[in-house]
């Protein structure tokens, strides 16, 4: 099965790398998301230097902004420091969701039938879909992380940030990406038309994103939305990665929260893998 998986994943990645139209937009999306959302959503930029006739000094203004970031944005040194984890999750979600288009095309153009008449396991077809989307999306995640660091007023990593933080951050992203990829790959193998896939994906992704803390802190959510958000895997991945980015060294309570969130993501990934595999087997069975 591993040979089949690597052959199919290799094919997809080779196509991806050779197609600049598929790779470059990913780079610019990351840049635009960070630059646009990082500025337009930044609430600290709304604080006027003159409040009711009281002129704030630059130091006072900075202090107020810093205080807001610390209290509301989990101690992030800059707004982009807060936003980066959410933007990366957003990129992961959309790449996973629309990554299945290639599989629908493979079905429509007959390539999938060719695979189904080859002596390979159905699991390798499914997991190669999962793997190729994950590799593509995780590459973009890493690129976005680098762009965020290089941007002016960009991502400032917490003091004491080390290799373990990095592993934790990308581990959380990978678990989210894997879980989502399992679901969306199974969906892509089940539908016959790109239109259907796009419609379902649009229906599913926006609520997923906007009920999470990817772009906004949960503190501002009404209680019902907070309850939903707390069970959203995007929230778990975002919060875990954000915690590890913003705080280099974690306190014991932060570590405990992180452990629970990661455990949640592990269960999420495992359940999605099983559900997706069952759905994919059904979709690939002879009709």
């Amino acid at each position, binding site marked *: 099965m591993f040979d089949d998986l690597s052959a199919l994943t290799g094919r997809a990645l080779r196509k991806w790398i050779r197609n600049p139209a598929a790779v470059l937009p990913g780079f610019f999306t990351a840049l635009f998301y960070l630059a646009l959302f990082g500025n337009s959503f930044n609430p600290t930029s709304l604080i006027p230097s003159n409040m009711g006739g009281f002129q704030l000094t630059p130091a006072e203004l900075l202090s107020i902004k810093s205080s807001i970031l610390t209290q509301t944005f989990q101690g992030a040194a800059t707004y982009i420091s807060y936003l980066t984890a959410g933007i990366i999750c957003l990129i992961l979600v959309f790449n996973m969701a629309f990554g299945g288009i290639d599989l629908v095309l493979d079905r429509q*153009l007959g390539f999938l*039938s060719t695979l189904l008449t080859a*002596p390979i396991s159905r699991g390798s077809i499914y997991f190669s879909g999962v793997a190729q989307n994950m590799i593509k999306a995780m590459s973009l995640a890493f690129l976005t992380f680098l762009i965020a660091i290089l941007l002016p007023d960009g991502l400032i990593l917490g003091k004491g940030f080390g290799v373990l933080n990095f592993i934790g951050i990308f581990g959380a992203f990978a678990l989210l990406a894997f879980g989502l990829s399992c679901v969306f790959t199974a969906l892509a193998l089940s539908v016959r038309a790109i239109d259907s896939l796009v419609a379902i994906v649009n229906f599913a992704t926006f609520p997923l994103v906007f009920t999470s803390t990817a772009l906004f802190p949960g503190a501002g959510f009404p209680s019902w939305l907070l309850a939903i958000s707390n069970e959203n895997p995007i929230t778990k991945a975002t919060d875990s990665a954000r915690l590890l980015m913003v705080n280099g060294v974690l306190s014991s309570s932060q570590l405990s929260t992180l452990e629970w969130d990661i455990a949640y993501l592990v269960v999420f990934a495992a359940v999605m893998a099983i559900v997706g595999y069952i759905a994919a087997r059904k979709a690939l069975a*002879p009709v």
Partner: protein
Amino acid sequence: MPPIIEAEHLTKFYPPKTKAVEDVSFSVDEGEVFGFLGPNGAGKTTTIKMLTTLASITSGKAKVAGFDVAHDPSAVRRSIGVVPQELTADDELKGNENLVLAAKLHHVPRSEVPGRVKDLLKLFDLEEAANRRVRTFSGGMRRRLQMAMGLVHSPKVMFLDEPTLGLDVQTRTKVWDYITRLNHDRGLTVFMTTHYLEEADGLCDRIAIIDHGAIKVSDSPAHLKEKFGGDVLSISMSGDTDLSEFLRTVPDVSDVTREGRVYKMKLPRTERALPVIIEGVTSRGLAITEISFSRPKLDDVFLEVTGRSMREDEGGGQDSWVQNLNLERQAS
């Protein structure tokens, strides 16, 4: 020698009430080229899908290369090569990369892959294009690559679904040549569907005509033409003596008509009756001034069996941008 493909009472039912194939039975011997003909929607593709494990069998039984299609699909897949109607070689990969991918997916031992790829590129005259991306290939080159991909694991049986669809006459003839060579040189069993009756006539040892999900006839092209058509012989005489009565007495001759000195008649095989006719004419002091005959075509058989000609059925099938894309790929 046992047949390499056996289908017994194959039936395929798509809910709620579409019977795509009904009680189809046939067998294909090892080393045979077997043609499966029929109008669009007759059940050809469904039958191929069942035999290649792509579709489940509602009832009946099928064996390919000795393995039960329903119970041992993996063994069947190891024994077959499938060249579908669609051009499924990956546009973004190079010619040789597509072949290597096909070899890997059919578990060809790693050490044998380069040699087989090289051999197949040579066999299908694709050596010069091996390092080019497939999107730069012409329709004929894509089809040849597709056939090479179907052969990379040295299958026992090759399924070809409309192997020359959309190709120009010259390329079509080349593909015929490849099929003949594979059959003769490698003893490959070929199961093919085609819309081109002259293709089936020239290539196939036996053909089956399927219509409305059931096989109507199955035999060698020559026997079918003999059974359903027969030659039309036309002879012109030197004198005015009426030979109609004599001609009607010649064994196998039928439908004798006369227009002046020209007689037309139907007979199963001209070469068998002609000496008798010549002898009868000369013994009556007459001479034949002109002689011609036309052989029946599979079109006549098809028309007789299905009630319509194959050409009336061309152009159906997939009606989507995917088909257009495939046609564009074939035409490029």
